[in-house]
């Protein structure tokens, strides 16, 4: 039951984030640059739920974004899936208690996601290569994502522990003892 509520909650939050990203954050920008809420969201699913969940939700939400607004169906799905999987791998090696660690994870994941998408679009859509412009945008986007994580950290942590209880309940004892 808890698992079902969590899954429905994740789907509702995803749609809320989609509308936030396409409306509010289309004008609440830093120098015209939007943040990427989906990277933060999928990373948190991966970190707090299981890697399967991160992978599956990352892939499905990515495919949804590709179909609705993207040019090539699949690429966001694959990269967001990888981010979800990475979340669980990072969870095994780093502490989620530290705000700094979470910020560093978000920075790394934003860079991985956007660089992969950009390189793909250069090859698949023959987009112009603009290295400096890309680095400038990526830098601002990464800073924006980090600021959002600082603000949302307590909320994300609370929701995250709810998810962890729902999905990883049995593993806690075996892991620490």
């Amino acid at each position: 039951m808890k698992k079902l509520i969590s899954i429905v909650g994740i789907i509702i939050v995803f749609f809320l984030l989609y509308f936030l990203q396409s409306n509010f954050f289309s004008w609440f920008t830093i120098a015209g640059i939007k943040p990427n809420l989906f990277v933060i969201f999928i990373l948190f699913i991966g970190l707090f739920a299981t890697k399967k969940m991160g992978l599956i939700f990352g892939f499905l939400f990515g495919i949804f974004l590709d179909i609705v607004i993207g040019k090539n169906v699949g690429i966001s799905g694959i990269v967001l899936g990888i981010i979800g999987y990475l979340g669980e791998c990072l969870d095994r090696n780093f502490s989620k208690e530290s705000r700094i660690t979470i910020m560093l994870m978000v920075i790394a994941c934003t860079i991985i996601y956007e660089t992969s998408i950009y390189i793909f679009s250069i090859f698949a859509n023959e987009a112009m290569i603009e290295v400096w412009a890309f680095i400038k945008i990526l830098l601002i986007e990464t800073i924006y994502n980090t600021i959002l994580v600082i603000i949302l950290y307590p909320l994300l942590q609370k929701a995250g522990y709810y998810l962890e209880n729902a999905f990883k309940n049995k593993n806690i004892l075996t892991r620490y003892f």
Partner: protein
Amino acid sequence: MYKNKKTGLIGIIITIIILIIVVFISNMDNKNISYIENIFNSLVMPVQNGLVYLKNKISGNDSFFADVNSLRQENEELKKKNSELEQELREFEILKAENETLKEYVNLKDKYKEFETIPAYIINKDISNYSKNIIINAGSDDGIEENMTVIADKGLVGFVISTTPTTAKVQTIIDPSTSVSGLLGTSRDPIVVNGTIESDNTLKATFIPTDANLSQGDIIETSGLGGIYPKGIQVGKITQVVETKNITDRYAVVETSVDFDKLETVLVITNK
């Protein structure tokens, strides 16, 4: 890690305030920024002027004050000349505006008249910083198909990349994956115009013929080559020509005719 909840909350509030300030400052109009600049200048400049005056005095460089009378006379003459030039410039601006209005009239009224169009509203814009697609509220049920050209009242917007029965996805000309084959309005030289990730209202014109004579204000319109865009739709005008060491690499910055930030309605051309 925060030691208690209170300091954590204060930290979050401070971060939110900083974020709001950063967002507003980074999106401020240049005019507002120059207003702030003026305030800072008025604070700093008197001291700066005083320091320069002192420096000139110390180094003996006080020749500014040597011949005040001749300087005044020269100043009067220059002022007179300046007002004459300003008058000429005003006349030139009027002629230029008149010329542009006529050009616009010829391009839009006469050329777009022959197209059958379907009007549509923009209902969604891209969520990414690196691509600039838009979604419109007309689809295959309205007769829209892939590769149809999308225009607005002032010029080219893009082309349809996919459709659903009620919506269509449009790849705009400002998207970095889009290339438009264009013609220079005056010399009729061919040119290729690309979108960039950096700006929402400028394009980059490349593959400029070495003998082409580019100038600021030149209008660029579609050439009709490539099979998607019809000939003669206004794309934008050149705002800057960037010369490089190798003339084949030179490029021009093109301001789009359509203001993509304020774009709300579009027309989809259904006949080719």
